[in-house]
């Protein structure tokens, strides 16, 4: 069944549906789509080749993607992937010659509390991988056993709510928050939002009430409410749980926003990694339409018409940035826009658009019920309310922990059963890396801000390898638009790999510093600007981890001069001392 109109704005959705039918995207199919939508083949190719989950070359009928976040690695994902490749006789990133299977890695799939995880055909998720599971997966793929007959236990996704406060612990009946908001009226609801001083939970922390007010006041008749459910920041999985357990509340928050700003159209941008949530979310939307919580004359209010569609991403971290998310919603490459104009002025299709995070909409629904003052009384003066943390890594009880803002880092570590902790990465790779002497600091916009990730590393971990994993992540996810990010992230990877191979010197560390400084100020969007954050923090706080990888304190080339001569030695049949470079010690 096709859900989307054959229109150029739906290009990403149409490509996704076409790929679900055909397995990959052959060029003639792109050409047909281009003709139908009034685009050129090159434009369609440009869009299709932007997203990591689209395949312009044939891939295996079984397409296995291992989640490659550092937390998956801590749990042994690299060895497991190697085992699966060996059992299936396939190289990573390549299709087996019989076309049956391909195995590769992908960025964090948002299952860090139950990893190592993998995705099959972008549709199914297997959690808690181990050697036994991998062996059995190989057999089932070899015998072409449909996934419907695989053990159901493998596909289990736990919510792991370990500490609930307002958002996770105080349920609201469907329609209750909306009724409260509608009873208040749009102006009073906006006023409550401002009083609450709720700041966006996606990371940037802009005041939600102000954003809604700007959108309401912007010129234009049609307004749009967008829910950012891209959750691409490695180590973050709170939105997955909110969408699984509290989808009604998310949609209700969107509907409240629609009432407050005067929008008729709502869009959820769901990351491609969460494809398995699509059908349940669509069912929830239908239930809400049936209950007059969506559609025309919502809850009997004549003139209040609003409905929500779900767009699915296709593997692109940068689309979490609100303007690239809007580009993607319009069926384009997810390149961040120049601002101004801001999305609240001209967003989706040029219409005033408010983009908020999943957690922000949940909070808005609670504020509708209990009022802005109630929310503002929780947390700290500049960071009101509660915040959900996705805790993973070296601790006994990974999962979701909701606390009021102002909570100590050390408190979270105690609660999750972390021992001998060396470092915590707060807010994902684009956030901050804290070492033990900072565990007294507090989670708040005033001190340590966060979008939700809380990754714990004990003293057995090599923080250089953590930073190297993040460097690869950013290079993989750079959209390629601006020079400093496109080239800079690739240069950082080259330098980090050089250090990892034991060819590094202090000069390389200096170049890393230089790249960090450049990218901080010169990039087009936040991805490049923050790409070196983990690098800078780990160099500053875990310098010995880097120095262990240095071959000398002076310059070292990226290659071994003598090893380069091995081919010449082989050809000439020599291996005597004179055929080797003299290595001065």
């Amino acid at each position, binding site marked *: 069944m096709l859900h989307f109109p054959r229109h150029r704005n739906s290009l990403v959705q149409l490509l996704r549906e076409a790929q679900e039918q055909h397995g990959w995207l052959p060029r003639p199919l792109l050409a047909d789509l281009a003709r139908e939508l009034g685009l050129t083949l*090159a434009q369609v190719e440009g869009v299709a080749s932007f997203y990591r989950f689209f395949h312009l070359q044939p891939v295996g009928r079984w397409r296995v993607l291992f989640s490659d976040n550092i937390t998956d690695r801590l749990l042994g994902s690299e060895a497991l992937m190697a085992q699966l490749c060996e059992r299936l006789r396939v190289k990573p990133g390549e299709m087996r010659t019989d076309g049956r299977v391909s195995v590769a890695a992908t960025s964090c799939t948002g299952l860090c509390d139950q990893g190592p995880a993998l995705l099959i055909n972008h549709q199914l998720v297997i959690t808690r991988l181990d050697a036994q599971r991998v062996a059995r997966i190989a057999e089932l793929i070899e015998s072409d056993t449909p996934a419907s007959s695989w053990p159901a236990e493998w596909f289990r996704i736990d919510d792991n709510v370990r500490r609930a406060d307002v958002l996770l612990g105080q349920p609201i009946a469907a329609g209750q928050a909306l009724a409260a908001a509608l009873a208040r009226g749009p102006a009073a609801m906006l006023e409550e939002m401002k009083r609450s001083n709720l700041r966006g939970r996606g990371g940037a922390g802009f005041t939600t009430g102000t954003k809604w007010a700007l959108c309401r006041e912007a010129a234009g008749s049609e307004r749009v409410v967008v829910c950012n459910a891209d959750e691409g920041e490695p180590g973050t999985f709170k939105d997955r749980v909110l969408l699984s357990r509290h989808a009604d509340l998310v949609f209700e928050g969107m509907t409240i926003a629609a009432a407050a700003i005067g929008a008729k159209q709502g869009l959820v941008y769901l990351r491609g990694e969460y494809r398995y949530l699509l059908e349940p979310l669509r069912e929830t939307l239908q239930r809400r339409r049936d209950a007059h919580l969506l559609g025309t004359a919502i809850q009997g209010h004549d003139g209040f018409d609003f409905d929500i569609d779900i767009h699915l991403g296709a593997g692109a971290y940068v689309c979490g940035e609100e303007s690239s998310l809007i580009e993607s919603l319009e069926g384009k490459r997810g390149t961040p826009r120049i601002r101004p104009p801001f999305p609240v002025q001209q967003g989706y299709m040029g219409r005033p658009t408010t983009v908020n995070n999943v957690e922000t909409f949940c909070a808005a629904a609670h504020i509708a019920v209990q009022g802005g003052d109630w929310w503002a009384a929780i947390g700290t003066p500049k960071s009101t309310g509660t915040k959900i943390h996705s805790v993973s890594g070296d601790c006994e009880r990974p999962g979701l922990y909701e606390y009021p803002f102002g909570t100590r880092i050390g408190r979270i570590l105690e609660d999750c059963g972390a021992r001998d902790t060396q470092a915590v990465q707060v807010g994902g790779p684009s956030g901050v890396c804290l070492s033990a002497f900072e565990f007294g600091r507090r989670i708040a916009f005033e001190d340590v801000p966060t979008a939700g990730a809380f990754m714990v590393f004990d003293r057995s971990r090599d923080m250089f390898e953590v930073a190297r994993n993040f460097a690869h992540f950013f290079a993989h996810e750079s959209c390629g638009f601006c020079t*400093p990010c496109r080239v800079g992230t690739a240069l950082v990877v*080259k330098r980090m790999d050089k250090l990892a191979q034991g060819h590094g010197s202090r000069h390389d560390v200096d170049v890393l510093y230089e790249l960090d400084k*450049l990218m901080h100020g010169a990039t087009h969007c936040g991805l490049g600007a923050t790409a070196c954050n983990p690098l800078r923090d780990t160099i500053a706080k875990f310098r010995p981890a880097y120095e262990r990888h240095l071959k000398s304190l002076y310059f070292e080339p990226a290659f071994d001069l003598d090893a380069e001569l091995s081919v010449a030695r082989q050809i000439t049949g020599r291996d005597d001392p004179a055929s080797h470079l003299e290595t001065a010690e």
Partner: protein
Amino acid sequence: MSEPCFTLDGEDVPFVPGDTLLQAARRAGHYIPHLCWHPDFRAHGSCRICTVRVNGRMAAACAVQASEGLAVENHTEELDAQRKTLLQMLFIEGNHFCPSCEKSGNCLLQATAYQMGMEGPHFEEFYPDRPVDASHPDILLDFNRCILCELCVRASHEIDGKNVFAIAGHGIGTHLVVNSDSGQLGDTDMALTDRAAGICPVGVILPKRRGFVIPIGERRYDQDSVAEPGRQEAS
């Protein structure tokens, strides 16, 4: 009534409402280095060479709206050094060999690099594999020098109405593609008279059979610095 002004390195620069910093500065005869910006097109913001400090914060001069009282720093040691690094990034990302390039002396990238005092690549080269496309009777495409400014994409779309080019891929694999079933320029309706054929600031889009008509040493940037008015961007 006096015109509204911002300051550029301490000098007053007048502007009209709607101007970006780069537009106003250029009109007033100042040089803010740039590659992907062109007066005939909307700001793009990809090369970042025009990055300046506006009231202390870094921003691309092509994208920032001019407003009264802004203090803009342009030619500071820090900013020019940063530009040099960005240029070095563009050089090592592609395959550039100025001495044998037909565009040498007419190349905005080369001229800007000279202007910023770039003397070497500084970083290790990527040496990407970018085959040339010689399929068109009149035009050669040498992708080795592409800096992804998208001026050809924009010119072909907005002025020629042909959409011959598009951008594909992502990250360091981002690249220019040609719109035809074969992906070859020879199978498009591109003509040498198209605006897109003349706008390339580097040596990707070259007319055939005209190589070295003007000897190196007598070319555009051999005569005048890129900082001169009228020499600041590709024709």
